[in-house]
């Protein structure tokens, strides 16, 4: 049984008014335990609406979300339990910090779960360690931290609930390139160490293709594709047509293929590309080496 199954999920804003707008249209997919899913799409493609339906912040207008085989809205009063299992880190999560100390803020989630004091303290410590927050920062006010530290503290606040599925909406937005890389690595490490499911929304194909097992491409509320990065980027040009950036290295490979080189176009990492180009060099150099021989023979 899939951990999370989405059946024919739709959401319409302002139903039965002049402003009616379908934000999400009939999405069906299933996600297994331990998968790392990347979600990409334009602004307004329905990504945010879609992920908010997964933890019951938005009630779908049609279709179902099944968590461990059970419809999350079967008992609306217990929707909070779903939110503990499906943790959600919003965009710019640092703006939700409110407690006197970082420690207390991270403990907000676990405390709402009615865990014992010891367990809460342990979770706060673990979560802070995952996002690499130094212990001395825990006693500070969250408003004294730097931008990157605030972001990590806020993410720790969700990780501390130890959700089975962690959803992150553009966690690296607004960070400098280094902070971005560090954060992405931390998320990947967290995923490996915990073995739980992670859904990552991002604009950056580069970021996503490095870590995701599968990618969900959304376009104008529809599910455009849900497949492995390799399969997605083999359709690189189609993806570009709906206005999404593909990794630069994929673009290079497509360009090479177009100008007559025999290279695959479903490449999305520099290492793979190097390998393919090396192969190519080998075969070309064979030709080059052979050429003078041929010339000599003539």
């Amino acid at each position, binding site marked *: 049984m899939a951990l999370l199954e989405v059946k024919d999920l739709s959401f319409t804003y302002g139903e039965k008014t002049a402003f009616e707008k379908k934000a999400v249209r009939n999405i069906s997919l299933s996600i297994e335990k331990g998968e790392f899913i990347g979600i990409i799409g334009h602004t307004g493609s329905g990504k945010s609406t879609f992920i908010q339906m997964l933890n019951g912040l938005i009630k779908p207008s049609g279709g179902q979300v099944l968590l461990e085989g059970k419809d999350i809205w079967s008992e609306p009063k217990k929707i909070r339990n779903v*939110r503990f299992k499906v943790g959600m880190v919003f965009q710019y999560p640092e703006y939700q910090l409110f407690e006197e100390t970082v420690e207390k803020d991270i403990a*907000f989630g676990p405390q709402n779960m009615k865990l014992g004091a010891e367990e809460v303290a342990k979770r706060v410590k673990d979560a802070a360690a995952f996002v690499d927050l130094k212990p001395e920062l825990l006693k500070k006010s969250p408003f004294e931290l730097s931008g990157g530290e605030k972001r990590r503290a806020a993410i720790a606040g969700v990780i501390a609930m130890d959700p089975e599925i962690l959803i992150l909406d553009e966690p690296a937005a607004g960070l400098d390139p280094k902070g971005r890389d560090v954060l992405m690595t931390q998320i990947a490490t967290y995923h490996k160490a915990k073995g739980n499911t992670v859904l990552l929304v991002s604009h950056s194909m580069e970021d996503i293709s490095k870590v995701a097992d599968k990618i969900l491409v959304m376009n104008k509320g529809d599910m455009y594709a849900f497949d492995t990065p390799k399969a997605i980027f083999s359709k690189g040009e189609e993806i570009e047509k709906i206005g999404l950036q593909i990794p630069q290295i994929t673009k290079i490979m497509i360009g090479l293929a177009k100008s007559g080189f025999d290279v695959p176009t479903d490449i999305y990492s520099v290492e793979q590309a190097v390998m393919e180009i090396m192969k190519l060099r080998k075969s070309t150099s064979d030709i080059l080496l052979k050429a003078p021989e041929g010339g000599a023979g003539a």
Partner: protein
Amino acid sequence: MMKEITLGQYIPGKSVLHKMDPRMKVILLVLFIVFIFASRNFVSLGIMAAAVFFVLCISGVSPRLYFKSIEAIIMIVIITSGLNLFYGTGEPLWEWRFLKITQAGINTALFIAIRITALVLISSVLTYTTSPTDLTDALERLMKPLSKLHVQVHEIAMMMTIALRFIPTLLEETDKIMSAQKARGADLESGNFIARIKSLVPILIPLFVSAFRRAFELAMAMESRCYHGGEGRTRMKVLKLSKRDYIALAVCSAVFTGVIVCSIVLPVTVRTGM
């Protein structure tokens, strides 16, 4: 939930009313309100109601929106008219214990219903056809004489503009913060009064922090564009009365004169304040 609250419900359009000088619109709205209140018989109220209806028709705003604004006050209309229904004097048409309905009562109830509806409709015409910035501009100009009394007219208008501008932003922000805290298991719906107040803390603190942050950013942005208050500041769009404003004034004056004449000549049917 938050998204459904609309404030400063300006509906962009190209009607005569949209193009009119906002100052003239504000003045005429005040006069409309005065004359709707001053009407003491059905004929003068009828003239005002017809004038309001005419204004609605040329506003180019969908009737559905006007129905919506009536919908919002329908309970008030029903309650006030309902009460007045039983307060009439004269021969009772219907009686039950201490309740009685008279012809005068029916008249008053009807009169009040029309009056409140007309008031609400004509006021919504102003907000539907005038953008919030135009509106504050107009108010600033109209209040200008007050600056002689050391009232900081420009500052007040600027604050109004900024406040209006930030209402949707802060609503959106509240929505986001609420979702984020709910995702961390914040319980906003259950518990007793104290628990509910307490549950607002995780929402209000981030909201205040962000409001202050935005205020500082805006102040910085304004100063870096050399804003130094209203003194000596000229406008990009200078409000100017045009032919259509004078025509509107003339037409309305004719209507108002009609109302005055009718009120004097014809007998008073309703003797009530509200």
